[in-house]
């Protein structure tokens, strides 16, 4: 455990004169799980890109196993450094084993593929990882967690010594995360060193041996995980004492804002009924694929319902398209930010006004009015951007999310559905978003809050519906809202809600 695998000496990186990483001196030990935490832009990604050879260091050097190395992607691979990227890098119509050996296929004479050997090696790997993936399964048909197993198999197939994982749990359910952690522990026992990057401090605490904190490209601290609690980690990342992460819970009124009755979509939702009170933040918990996103999409008219009634403030509404939803003053913040929320090639202003452009146009668009409105959102949401004309691709995840939020809010909703509003954004932006939601509720807007982060649901909501397999598995209120209760309902360990 005391042997050093990687040592960096005064490691630094600049992009055209701007330093994004300064003077990093750390030793990563053999067989440890080394956590790196920090806000967006703290230099985490740059650090790992220097280690896997994507970028060349501007200053300093890297020693691998005691020898100085000049890394490039090929060199990294050769000496056993592999990365599991945040976004999967799999060819979806190829089989699992074909992906594992992509570009490094076993061959027989005449250069023909040795499928037999690859299949055998792939099932060996899967066995070693204790993962239940058939080598011949098409990647298309695999679950997100299984895809990740294929990624890991791909990474360890060639005697990996250093495994870099960048936010591996973002797309996983709690159960799948448990499986991943088991796997990481086994790899560790086999002597593999793992660098683990995550926004989820709780997970960092569970799995890591030591944690390095980066802030604005600077090294802040490196401590054994036992010496840090979540609060302390967050403080160090942000650089100041953090007040409470969650604002005080809202007190909803009695009036019913939204009532959903027997909503069904074949194969996805089965007679879902619930009601949302005015000024309430109603939580929706559940595992991935439990139907929370599908439920929201059906309410806002993206999916067609086969049955069911939706009432808004008591009157029945027929919502068949997102524009009907806007007309009924329902706003939806999609879960998939880049794929459904914002246009990365559009600037800040035109993203914010995308859903509400009617307000700004008669025959021609009134650009000044548009800009003024965008300016007020940029100020009140603290959106960090060089200008209103900056394209969204240049904004950080948290700021993109705020733009997406502003876009939905600009349609003047009375009901707002937030689908995973904090996915992949840093703690500061998360706190801000909780406060925005709280402020909306104070203005009388009723909110649905969907999150896979249990602590968020617990911290934000005073009533939580747990979904499982397209049904509402149970409702939890106030003190009943605990991780154990939510997981029981989400996994179906007990039927129905707890006794009250």
């Amino acid at each position, binding site marked *: 455990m005391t042997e050093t695998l990687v040592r960096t000496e005064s490691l630094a990186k600049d992009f055209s004169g701007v330093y994004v990483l300064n003077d990093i001196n750390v030793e990563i030990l053999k067989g440890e799980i080394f956590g790196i935490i920090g806000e967006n832009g703290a230099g985490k990604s740059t650090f790992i890109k220097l280690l896997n050879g994507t970028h060349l260091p501007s200053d300093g050097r890297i020693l691998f196993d005691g020898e100085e190395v000049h890394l490039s992607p090929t060199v990294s691979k050769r000496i056993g450094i592999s990365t599991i990227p945040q976004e999967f890098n799999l060819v979806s119509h190829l089989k699992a084993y074909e992906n594992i050996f992509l570009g490094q296929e076993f061959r027989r004479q005449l250069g023909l593929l040795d499928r037999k050997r690859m299949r055998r090696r792939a099932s060996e790997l899967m066995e070693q990882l204790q993962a239940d993936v058939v080598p011949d399964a098409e990647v298309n048909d695999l679950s997100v967690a299984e895809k990740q197993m294929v990624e890991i198999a791909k990474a360890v197939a060639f005697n990996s010594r250093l495994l870099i994982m960048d936010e591996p749990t973002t797309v996983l359910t709690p159960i799948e995360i448990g499986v991943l952690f088991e796997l990481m522990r086994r790899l560790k026992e086999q002597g593999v060193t793992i660098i683990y990057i995550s926004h989820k401090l709780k997970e960092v605490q569970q799995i890591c041996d030591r944690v390095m904190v980066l802030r604005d490209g600077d090294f802040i601290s490196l401590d054994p995980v036992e010496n840090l609690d979540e609060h302390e980690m967050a403080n160090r990342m942000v650089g100041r004492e953090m007040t409470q992460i969650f604002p005080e819970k809202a007190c909803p009124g009695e009036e019913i804002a939204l009532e959903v009755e027997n909503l069904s979509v074949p194969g996805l939702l089965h007679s879902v009924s619930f009601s949302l009170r005015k000024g309430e933040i109603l939580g929706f918990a559940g595992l991935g694929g439990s139907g929370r996103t599908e439920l929201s999409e059906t309410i806002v008219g*993206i999916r067609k319902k086969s049955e069911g009634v939706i009432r808004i403030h008591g009157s029945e509404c027929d919502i068949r*398209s*997102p*524009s009907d*939803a*806007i007309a009924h003053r329902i706003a*939806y913040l*999609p879960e998939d930010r880049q*794929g*459904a*929320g*914002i*246009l*990365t*090639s*559009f600037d800040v202003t*035109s993203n914010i006004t*995308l*859903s509400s*452009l*009617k307000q700004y*146009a008669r*025959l*021609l*668009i009134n*650009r000044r009015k548009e800009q003024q409105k965008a300016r007020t959102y940029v100020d009140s949401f603290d959106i960090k951007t060089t200008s209103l004309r900056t394209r969204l691709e240049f904004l950080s995840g948290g700021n993109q999310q705020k733009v997406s939020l502003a*876009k939905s809010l600009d*349609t003047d909703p009375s009901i707002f559905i937030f689908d995973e509003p904090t996915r992949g954004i840093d703690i500061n932006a998360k706190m801000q978003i909780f406060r925005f939601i709280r402020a909306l509720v104070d203005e009388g807007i009723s909110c649905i809050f969907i999150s896979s982060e249990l602590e968020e649901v617990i911290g934000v909501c005073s009533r939580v519906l747990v979904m499982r397999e397209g049904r509402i598995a149970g409702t939890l209120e106030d003190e009943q809202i605990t991780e154990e209760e939510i997981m029981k309902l989400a996994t179906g360990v007990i039927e129905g809600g707890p006794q009250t």
Partner: protein
Amino acid sequence: MKLLEQVRSSGLGELAKKIEWEKYGPFIALVVLFIVSSFASPYFFQVRNITNILRQISYTGIIALGMTFVIISGGIDLSVGSATALVGALAITVLNYFGGGGLAIAAAILVAVLAGATAGALNGLVITRWRVAPFIVTLGSMSIFRSLTLFLTNAGVMRSTSVQYQQVGMGYFLGLPNPVWIMLILAAVFHVVLFHTRYGRYVCAVGSNERVAAYAAIKTAWIKFYGYVLVGATVGLTSILLSSRMNSIASTNAGSGYELDAIAAVIIGGTSLSGGSGSIVGTLIGAVILGIVNNMLNMMGVSPYLQGTVKGLVIIGAVLIQRGRKGAFQ
């Protein structure tokens, strides 16, 4: 690797980086082409030659203006050339039927624009309603429109019996040929539509990411549909200008290759074939660049058979230059 770093860090690299190629690339190319051409031939800068170039490009230039919307929305229309022939044949039929007078000309123009828009609407309908790829649909309708034209005219030439009709396409107004005026006016209107109306904004949104647009309550199918109607209407105008200049429509070759020129003008003008952004001014510049290249090849006595080669090289080169920053190395 070292060399690349050096080029990047040198002053030249910095300058090249600062220019927004996507935005000003076509304009810079046009200026360079102008300068080169005026040195290459003393006749180039004569008013008559410039007017001539503008007239030559106006037919496909007008279609290219409509095509810009379709391509920005993420589609393509390969049928514009054959549609020009079909609509032109219809227009002349109407013209002859009503006796070829002033009213007959007006009727022919109206029918041409409506018929062109209808042809576009049919493409748009199949593309948006039944979700068939635009390339396939318009490849099919390209064949259908040409075949219908051949059938209607018995593979011959549809001649106008009107004496005044030629005035439409041959006439001048304030020193510029009528087709050039129409192209310029249309460009001004389309520019405003693309950059200052909701429709224009939505076209860019749909082409940029259709799913985001749909979630933002944009009726994406309609937005795409209108694009095909629009390019159809521009086909109608071109068919009038072309048929009146010839006072006929030759069913076998009228409008042939127009799709290539129109799409090329859009692409050279900086609109990305994958959609999302583009500009009308760029398309206009793209059309002029193609016109000047052809003109220069003529004046320098290059075989007309080789003009297609040069055109092809210009198209490929334009895309490579515009990709500039995001080049293959990254």
